[in-house]
């Protein structure tokens, strides 16, 4: 049943993005606008980089395979660089917008913080990047056949979906970290984001040996998640606080009668409040 593959891959690739959108963005019109504008900026960067690559390809000899591969690598590197440039441009735009929003609001305070804008912008980049990676593949997964007759791996659809999911989340985390680095004028952060982006993109050239590209991408994603968490105001304390005190875990503890932890949580809660 090829429809099963279609829905499975669609959910894998876009499940986290959909969840993030539904719960954190859909209710706030301002965040929706920032999301869509972010997607548009990514689209612009793709358009420009693909134009450059297209011209380079047309001007070159199509028979020369190594030249074409070289042009592809050049195209990918140029695209990564251009995406980061557009991310910076979007950051500048959002800063300007933030000042404007603060000016017109009643309390002279912007309704949205830079961290939130960073997260939404990153998610916008991620969703559009995921769409462009995955939609073509999804439409072909509806046919009766699967990849493999020319010797490619039959897990093509699944691995593409997982890679897309990783890229979407990576873009979100890079957005957060990037904007934070710009705010605090830490230029090495921007360079690190660009370098990691180049690394993940370069890993995809190792395909079809998927063990070379997918696990490292996921490792980098976990690391980036941690970095984004810490740079957006999280800390180990808040993590344990939420994990221990506010989770269903706590209710189990309460009912089992281990009160010392409850006192500790209450103490912390009093401190915060």
């Amino acid at each position, binding site marked *: 049943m090829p429809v099963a593959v279609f829905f499975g891959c669609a959910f894998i690739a876009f*499940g986290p993005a959909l969840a993030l959108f539904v719960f954190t963005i859909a209710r706030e019109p301002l965040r929706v606008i920032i999301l869509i504008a972010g997607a548009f900026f990514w689209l612009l960067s793709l358009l420009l980089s693909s134009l450059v690559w297209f011209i380079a390809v047309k001007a070159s000899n199509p028979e020369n395979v190594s030249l074409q591969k070289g042009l592809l690598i050049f195209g990918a590197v140029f695209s990564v660089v251009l995406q980061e440039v557009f991310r910076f441009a979007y950051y500048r735009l959002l800063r300007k917008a933030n000042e404007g929003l603060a000016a017109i609001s009643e309390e002279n305070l912007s309704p949205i913080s830079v961290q939130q804008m960073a997260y939404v912008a990153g998610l916008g980049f991620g969703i559009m990047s995921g769409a*462009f990676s995955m939609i073509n593949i999804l439409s072909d997964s509806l046919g009766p056949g699967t990849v493999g007759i020319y010797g490619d791996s039959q897990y093509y659809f699944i691995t593409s979906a997982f890679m897309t999911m990783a890229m979407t989340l990576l873009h979100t985390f890079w957005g957060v970290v990037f904007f934070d680095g710009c705010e605090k004028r830490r230029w090495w952060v921007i360079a690190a984001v660009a370098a990691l982006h180049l690394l993940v*993109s370069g890993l995809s050239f190792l395909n079809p040996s998927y063990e070379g590209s997918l696990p490292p991408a996921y490792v980098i994603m976990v690391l980036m998640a941690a970095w984004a968490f810490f740079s957006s105001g999280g800390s180990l304390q808040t993590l344990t606080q939420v994990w221990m005190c506010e989770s269903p875990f706590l209710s189990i503890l309460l009912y089992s009668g281990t009160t010392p932890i409850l006192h500790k949580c209450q103490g912390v809660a009093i401190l915060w409040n």
Partner: protein
Amino acid sequence: SESGQPSLLLTCLHICPLPGVGCSSVQQKIYVQLNKTFPCVRLLNATHQIGCQSSVSGDTGVLHVLETETDLDWVLSSGPNPPYVVLMVAEHFNRSTMMKLKGSARVAGVAVVISKAGPAQGFSPHHSCPNQNSGVYSDSYGPELAGCNVTVWNPLGNSLSYEDFRFPIFSLHEGEEADVIRKCFLDHNRGVNGSDPAYPLCAMQLASHMYAVKDTATCMRRNDIQSRFSISPEFVCDALADYNVWSSLKPLNNSGKGHLDGESVVIAATRLDSRSFFWNEAPGGESAVGGFVTLLAAAQALRAVVEDHPPSQNILFTFFQGETFDYIGSSRMVYDMENGKFVIDLDNIHSLVEIGQVALHRNGQLWLHSDPVSRRNSSVRSESTALNLSLSVAEPDVSQPLPPSSFQRFLRARPIPGVVLTDHMSAFSNRYYESLYDDAEYLNVSYPSGLSPEEQLEYVTDTAKTLAEVATLVARSLYKQAGGLDDHLSSINADPKIVTQMLYGFLVQSNNSWFRSLVSPDIVKNLGDPVKMPTWLVQYVLANFTGTLRNLTQTQCKNPEDLEGESKDLYSYFWVQGPVPPNSTQGEGYCVRAPVRLVKAHSPAFELHQYSSRDYSTWTESRWKQIQARIFLVASRDLEMLTLGVGVAVLLVSLVVTYFINSKADLLFSSSRETTSTAY
């Protein structure tokens, strides 16, 4: 984008030069299109539908190559992954195997690999008694001769072409595509050490969805509804129709229809068409080409005497189309003659000579068949003995009916004296009647290796020599029959050279220099490997043989009305390219005037709107949108369900985690809160 596969783009570069024009590079990775395939299509008549049908987007099945009986059992009962698409070589394409596959629900389609030579024992997918119900023998006319009671004309016939299959059947020739399919099967579909083969498996999809169903009356009714109520009508079927070619030794005035006073005509008839199990593939070497090439050569041979010593009666050369399908062409001509829509009518016919299958005669022996019911004490018999030729002609001993021939339709209307000339005494000598193997090789039209196409065109094969002798015999008999004098018989000789050129053109390669010089310049591009619809080509060849060159320009040739000595009523005018001089690419162009005409070969049943007629042919061919075949790999159901399961799990987990993090967001991200920016 960077998460794509780089090799994809490379393939895209090489195969999809124009991005966005319906080319998906992922599709290139999945499917292998098979381009040189021939489908079997659906045909309908008054009572039945025959042929093959597929579902709208095509039928997909796991590929299995049929080589032995165990393979057949695998497909029909023991294979674990039904449905199957069966790939078989032509030896297995026989009635017993196909009937077994037809009755099974585990078969999604069949692909037949056609080799050059047919099975040694012969193969004919046609009926064993061709055109049984549309000939002259019926309950009211020679009932003991009807239904092949006396002679079974096509004993090797297995009626496979007239079965109704509910799955698609395609054919392909031996070559690259067949090798690719076999390689795919060997790589993926054979289990290791006798175990079941593991997924992914190689599969094939055949798409040949036919729109018409049930019978001609139904599809004609649906056509009617479409044309009346739809803004852009989509017809579901078309009647089989083409043109008959006719020419006369002395020109007849085409504007006068009906009975022509004082005219007595000997008709020389033959048929132009053939068929096979698959659509648009009908070499018809012995069944059609041999006959009409002979008649064309005879027409050319008679030219020698037509100027100076014309016979007292006229000779009408007629080439009927559609005879395979219940005599479409000849029934239409008889109908036109009965209703006064043709230049002559049935009373003008003196006698009829038909050329049947003549190319496979053994030891120079030919046979003359006549109708025992209406046999007259006519002079036809005596004239046809050999006239100083190495051929001998005899009549079959028994009181045998006529073989399937256009003459039978004339007999249905009027008891006209006539004979049918064939190379078989009783059953056909053609062991591949109406099949794909009735081709140049079967007729022994073969050339020594190392000849260029032009040299092959000129090389006179033995077949050509014997057919030329038959043509000479026919021409001389016609001349005598039409009242010509014996003294001039020796000057009537068919030329083996043109016979071999015609055989080369109609059986091997029609894009040759001689054909190119005969046709008009804008039709030259339609020539190409044996031409599928020879009607127009026969018309031009006949024009060349019976016509004369006129000194007219191209515009004058198109409209010769006002010119002296030219008459569009008596002749047709053709602008032909002419021989190409050595230093240029196009011929100069000449105007040829010939008494050659085309008349519609469209069954009278459609004129009369009698779509369930028993008297006339009611054959129609279904319409279709897309015919394609491709192979690819299919994944196991388990992997597909696993993908879906993983997807749903990822979605649910991410929903839960996101909800949870979102509800605790202010606590989680609170440690570096700044007072200047608020968050909630």
